[in-house]
């Protein structure tokens, strides 16, 4: 039996259902909208598990589901060494979002990462503490800033409403996922000119250890085998 983990609500769930439907596999919620059980038609030996998108990486790595749909951002952030445990089967073409750094729009002197690094250095000298970046993507942001040799910052945890932290004076900049940038603009924030830290999209993953004949057959049916 292949247990397939799919986000349990919202557009991400609907688009995932559509993606599988286009490939002849019908996923549906059984019973009422409140029930997190599902059914699978059009393929044998696959069961549907509806989960919060944020839990899917962990469940995959733990082997409690064999396949799962979630954002690359969540996998890269939550699973250190993820390539050792998971296989990326197919990018699914929706749920696009970039992990970016944004600074206050009013910082006219801050265009790129070099400006940002210089401002961070000045800020530390001026205020006696390191410039704060609010984010929930600690590992990704830290690794990226280390790679670009930016040092004079600290990360502050923000699990929601991250765009508001600058106005609330709990951070000087943010690192967050954005698709259109509209929320950033509404909060007077501007994206730093640089390649995104990560380009994320909804992706079908499998647990590496669960690969085998049964999964190959399912993948062939989905048109995913090379």
């Amino acid at each position, binding site marked *: 039996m292949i247990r397939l983990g799919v986000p349990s609500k919202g557009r991400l769930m609907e688009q995932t259902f559509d993606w599988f439907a286009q490939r002849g596999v019908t996923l549906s919620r059984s019973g009422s909208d409140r029930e997190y059980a599902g059914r699978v038609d059009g393929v044998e030996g696959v069961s549907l598990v509806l989960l919060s998108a944020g839990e899917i990486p962990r469940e995959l790595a733990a082997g409690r589901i064999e396949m799962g749909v979630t954002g690359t951002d969540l996998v890269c952030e939550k699973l*250190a060494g993820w390539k050792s445990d998971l296989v990326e089967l197919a990018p699914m073409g929706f749920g696009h979002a970039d992990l970016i750094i944004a600074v206050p729009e*009013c910082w006219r002197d801050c265009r790129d990462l070099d400006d940002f690094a210089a401002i961070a250095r000045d*800020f530390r000298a001026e205020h006696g503490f390191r410039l704060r970046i609010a984010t929930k993507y600690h590992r990704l942001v830290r690794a990226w800033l280390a790679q670009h040799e930016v040092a004079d910052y600290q990360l502050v945890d923000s699990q929601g409403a991250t765009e508001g932290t600058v106005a609330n004076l709990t951070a000087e900049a943010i690192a967050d996922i954005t698709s259109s940038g509209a929320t950033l603009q509404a909060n007077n924030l501007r994206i730093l000119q640089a390649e995104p830290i990560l380009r994320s999209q909804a992706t079908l993953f499998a647990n590496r250890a669960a690969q085998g004949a049964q999964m190959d057959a399912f993948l062939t049916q989905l048109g995913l085998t090379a």
Partner: protein
Amino acid sequence: MIGKRDKQAIGQTLLAAFRGAGAVEIAPDILLPAESLLDLYGEDIRARAYVTADPIRGEMMLRPDFTVPVVQAHMENGAEPAKYCYLGEVFRKQDMGDIRPANPRDNEYLQAGFELFSRDPDADAELFALFHGLLAPYGVTAQMGDMGLLLDAVAGLPLTEDRAYALSHHIWRPGRFDRLLARFSTPTPMHKFDEPAAAWAGLRTPDEMTRRIARLQADAAVAPLPAIWTERLERLFNLHAPATQALPALHELADDMPAIAPAVVRIATRMQAIADRGIDLDGIIFDASHGRTTLEYYDGFTFSFVANHDGWPPVASGGRYDALTRVLGKGREIPAVGGIIRPGLIAELEADA
């Protein structure tokens, strides 16, 4: 797989040797206040420390290194000169990136260390010779460098104060350093700044921005650094040779860069003092850039002992950290030098032999 008890036993042997060299054993807390101390480490350790919250004492960390708490203890109630030794665990996260390595590095491991607070200029050689004697049987290679040499070289460039400060700040970040140096060596295009559109937000003040813009505009008028200086700096940074050959090269460099002459004299004196202790200088590599990849609080002599094993951290490392005693000394300061040996790696080398 070598057990903790065996590593501990090696650590005790090293500790006994340190005591024999006149050090007093000190046992700093494992749980240390995080906020003020974490800032003293470079980014590498800062990101890797285990930080936790205590309801009364606030943000705490598991000891990521011994030097800072030892310096703190000494500055609070130590008499000088002083020699301390210690043995205990340090804790560092090992974030492996996307792929889990076959042999992940330890999250907790032992350090046996020796710290020397003394105004005696001979202290560097004393410490190095002690480590060299303990490590000689294991066939490791000694490397040394001097951060003071590099900082003096940067300070001696014909640059504005702002530029010199920015460069020396990034000396531990080679990519950023090179980009800055390249920028300072070409005419700076005049920045254009958009007119303010958005309302002010955040803790950084408009005044801070105005001052930075003024600095950038003033900086655009500064003449570029002649290319000859970048060449000289590169020659210095790339100097990597047995100590006996490095010394004449350093003297030659000092002819072109007078600012490093005092540091070169210091290095020559130190090497002589090491040789006087019966150590063959031909067996030691002098790497001018050595300190750029070590802890950021080292500001003078640095050294490490490296085993011929891929992916291993140095078996031992250390250096001089005079500025750190000033930061933690609340007005007092004392020259200090120290280093650590990893008993766990020594145990593996012994098992290989």
